[in-house]
Each structure stands twice: as structure tokens, then as C-alpha cells.
């Protein structure tokens, strides 16, 4: 399936990262990251386990503070914002967690209603129900409404996690390992869902993964993270398939035998 790139607006940068550094003690995780994310595109960050992919998107969402460098999201520098402004910005960001992070004391329906009820206090119970039904439909899990997260499979939890962010109609989606731990067919469903979200919600997305199939089928552009820096950014062919870097090559050969 070839993706159509017509919706990408290269003149409009939604996330701009400049010279970003982050360490935990002696563990220098990010060492000088520069990255632009354009409006409407799916940008895949590809890298091995432990290279700091999760740290990178947590910094974008303001969950971690950078040691130095700047992260600008929708024109605002994230780590300079006061709580109120940061909250306003976060409403435009959807974060799908690596392990879904569903609230396990609440049913699926309550999970989805949780952010909506707190940000639109005037919304009637019926309107909330309608919205919940709408996003459940969008991720194809209408029947899960009254189930608890513990009763769902890993793939279903991922979908509900995505639905919970969609309910706030974000402009930017951050996916942390959307396909990790899923079988190839379920992975493909999630990949399709990510592309559907991009098309119907006009989101700009960062997709973090070490799954090359996911990178290939969702990414408009791929950025390869290696030793705390971006090695190469470009199409899948440029950045991965035809890469001259030994590590990328062996990563590719090992992963992709089709």
C-alpha cells in the first residue's frame, strides 16, 4: 500500500526540536537531537531498545524536562510554559503509551469519558455517551464499552488507548511503540488505524517503533535514532533500505526477510 502525501504541509512545522540533550546521571541518552515535524505527516522514529525513544516523546509532551536545547510544539516552547498554558497545549496532543496506561479501576467507557468530562464540564451525559460511542466505533471496539481494561487483549488495549486520545480531537499524536508485543495481523490493524487517524483527523504524528513493518506502512518520513542522535531522515528507502550505515543494515537484514 503506497501512501499519498498530498496532505503534508512542509511550510508548517508543528514540532521543532533543536540541539536537545538529556541524561540520567551518567547515562547520556539524547545527545544533540534536531528534528522538524511537518503538519499532516507521520514521522517514524526508528531505533533499538533503550536508545531513548520514549524519553524523546515524553520530552515533547512535557513529561520530562530536557537538560538543554529547545522543543517547540505548535509555536510554544514546552519547558517554558506555566501549568495552565502547558495544560492548554496538552489538550492538542494525544499520547498513546507503550503499555497503553489505561486506568484499570475504570471501565473502557469511563476511561474514554474521563478526559472529556473534565475539560467540557458543561457537556451533558448524553453528549459524552455519544462521543464515547463515536471514538469506540472509530477504533472498531464498540462492544468493549462496559469491559474493564484487564479483560482486554494487548491489541484491544492499544486501540482503547488511542481512542482515549482521539476523544479530545488532538492536532498531534504521539505513539509509543504502537505495535510492540502484537502479532503481525493485529499489528497491521494498528498500522491501518494510525493511517486512518492521520487521514480523518488531519493529525501530525510521531510514531516511535522498532518494528520495520510498522515504520514502512505508517511513515511518511523515517528518522533513525542511533547513539542519542538522528543518523538519517528520509523516506523508508532512503533512511533504512538503502542505508550505508552498518548498524542500520544489520537491523534491517535481521528484521525484514520478505
Amino acid at each position, binding site marked *: 500500500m503506497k501512501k499519498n502525501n498530498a496532505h503534508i504541509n512542509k511550510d508548517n512545522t508543528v514540532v521543532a526540536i533543536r540541539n536537545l540533550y538529556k541524561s540520567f546521571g551518567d547515562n547520556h541518552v539524547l545527545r544533540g537531537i534536531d528534528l522538524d515535524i511537518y503538519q499532516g505527516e507521520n514521522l517514524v522514529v526508528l531505533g533499538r531498545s533503550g536508545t531513548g525513544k520514549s524519553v524523546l516523546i*515524553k520530552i515533547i*509532551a*512535557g*513529561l520530562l524536562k530536557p537538560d538543554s536545547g529547545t522543543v517547540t510544539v505548535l509555536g510554544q516552547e514546552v519547558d517554558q510554559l506555566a501549568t495552565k498554558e*502547558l*495544560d*492548554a497545549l*496538552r*489538550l492538542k*496532543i494525544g*499520547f498513546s*503509551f*507503550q*503499555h497503553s*496506561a*489505561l*486506568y*484499570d479501576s475504570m471501565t473502557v467507557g469511563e476511561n474514554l469519558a*474521563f*478526559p472529556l468530562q*473534565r*475539560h467540557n*464540564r458543561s457537556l451533558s451525559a448524553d453528549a459524552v455517551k455519544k462521543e464515547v460511542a463515536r471514538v469506540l466505533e472509530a477504533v472498531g471496539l464498540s462492544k468493549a464499552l462496559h469491559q474493564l481494561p484487564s479483560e482486554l487483549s494487548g491489541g484491544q488495549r492499544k486501540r482503547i488507548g488511542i481512542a*482515549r*486520545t482521539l476523544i*479530545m480531537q488532538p492536532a498531534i499524536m504521539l505513539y509509543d511503540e504502537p505495535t510492540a508485543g502484537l502479532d503481525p495481523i493485529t499489528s497491521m490493524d494498528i498500522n491501518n488505524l494510525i493511517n486512518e487517524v492521520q487521514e480523518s483527523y488531519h493529525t501530525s504524528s510521531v510514531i516511535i517503533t522498532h518494528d520495520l513493518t510498522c515504520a514502512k506502512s505508517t511513515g511518511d518520513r523515517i528518522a533513525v535514532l542511533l547513539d542519542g542522535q538522528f543518523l538519517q531522515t528520509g523516506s523508508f528507502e532512503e533512511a533504512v533500505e538503502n542505508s550505508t550505515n552498518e548498524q542500520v543494515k544489520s537491523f534491517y537484514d535481521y528484521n525484514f526477510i520478505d
Partner: protein
Amino acid sequence: MVPAHQSWLDMNERPRKTRTQVFTRKLDAFFLDIYSIGQFTGRFFREAFRPPFEWKEVIRQFYMVGYKSLALVSVTSFVTGIVFTKQSRPSLAEFGATSWLPSLVAIAIIRALAPLVTALIAAGKVGSNIGAELGSMRVTEQIDAMEVSAVNPFRYLVVTRVLATTCMLPLLMLYMAVIALLGAYLNVHNNEQTSLAAFFQNAFEQISFLDIFSSSFKSLLFGFTIGIIGCYKGYYTTQGTQGVGKAANSAVVISMFLIFIEEIIVVQVVNSFR
């Protein structure tokens, strides 16, 4: 602010260090812990009285705190009442003063036993539960998820739980006192055939408003301590699943430790009013 992750209570760590080194390290960690608990408490007061309020969640937590400890409090208080009365009887009998038994028992229960025993039970049941619950929400990134959806997790999780423990403990304490007195009555009735009305009249002869007030105040303080420590330990849980157990465990130990210190201080202060 960096919370003190390393608990000063883990006595078995790092056997290679000398005893003095271990001791100073524990002491450092202890004061760091106290300092961050102070900050955490400050944040509670800053956030608790600002809308929006999570009433529904507060009510749910009220129910959880009561529900979690009610059975154990009932059994413990009833048994305490019976046993305490039974054990005090011989020493009073020596002076032919068994008629003082109801008022002696009432003083012991209302002034000392009820607040302390309720607090220790709640620390064990509720404190550990809060520590484990918030701890697992932390390590499974549910707290981060709340934060990125622009919902203040401190207000939703911490404020509600601390309010619940603070308000529920005085109620549990009063309940505990009544049940313990009923236990005491059972023993007195079996021996002296006293009527219930006479027993309670006798029991409350020596009890003043100050006694009930100071016990309720103590319970309020204990409840606040249990809530704050449980939430603090859970909220700053690290090291994955293993950390959740540690959070629950140290929530219990630290709150019990603080409850004893508070008990001693409040007793001194109240006695100066008598």
C-alpha cells in the same frame, strides 16, 4: 525536587559498607524523606482548596476507607474492650474497687486506645492500599497518562484520598470507642449484672468534652498522616513492580512511626490543658 527514593528503613542493603557509613546514609535519606514529605504536604494545601473539586471521587474514597477497615476495626475493638476489662479487673478487685471499672475502661479507651488502635489498623489496611494503588498507577504510567490529558493527577488522586482518610478516621475512632465499650459492658454485665444504662452512665462520669475533642483531633491528624504518607510513597514509586511492594510497605512503617510521634506530642499538649 527529587524525592528520597532510598528508604532509611531498608536495613539489609549494601553489607560491605561500615556501620557508620550505613548509618549516615540512612540518616541523610531520612531527612531527605522528611523534607520531601513536607513539600508534598505543602502542595496538598495549595491544591486542595482550589476548584474544580472531584466530589464524586472523594465520596468513593470515603467509602473505600470505611469499607476497607470497618470489619477489622469492629472485631479488634470488641475484643480489646473485653480483654482490657477482664485484665484490669483483678487489680481493682484487690482494693474492692471493681465499681470503678466502667469509668477506668472508658478513660483508657476514649483517651488512648481508640485513636491509636484505629490509626494503626487504618495505616495497615488503608495506607498500604493507597501506597500500592498509586504505586502501580505510577509504574504503569497511568499518572503520566492523566498528566498528558491535562487532568491534574495530584488533585484527582492525592487530594481526594487525603481528604477521605482525614475525615473518616475520627468517625472510625468514635465507632471503635462505642464497640469497645460494648465489649467492656459484656464483661462487666457478666460479673456484676450491671444494666447497659448504668454502665454507660458510670463510664462517662469521668469523660470530659476535652477528652472526646482531643481524641477526635488526634484521629484527624493520624488520618491526614496516613493519607499523605500513603500517597507520597505511591506517587513517587520507582523501580517498577518491585517498587510497588516497597511503596506499600514503607507507607505503613513510616505512617506508624509518625503516628507514635504525634501521639506523644498531642498527649503532652492536651495534658497541659487539664
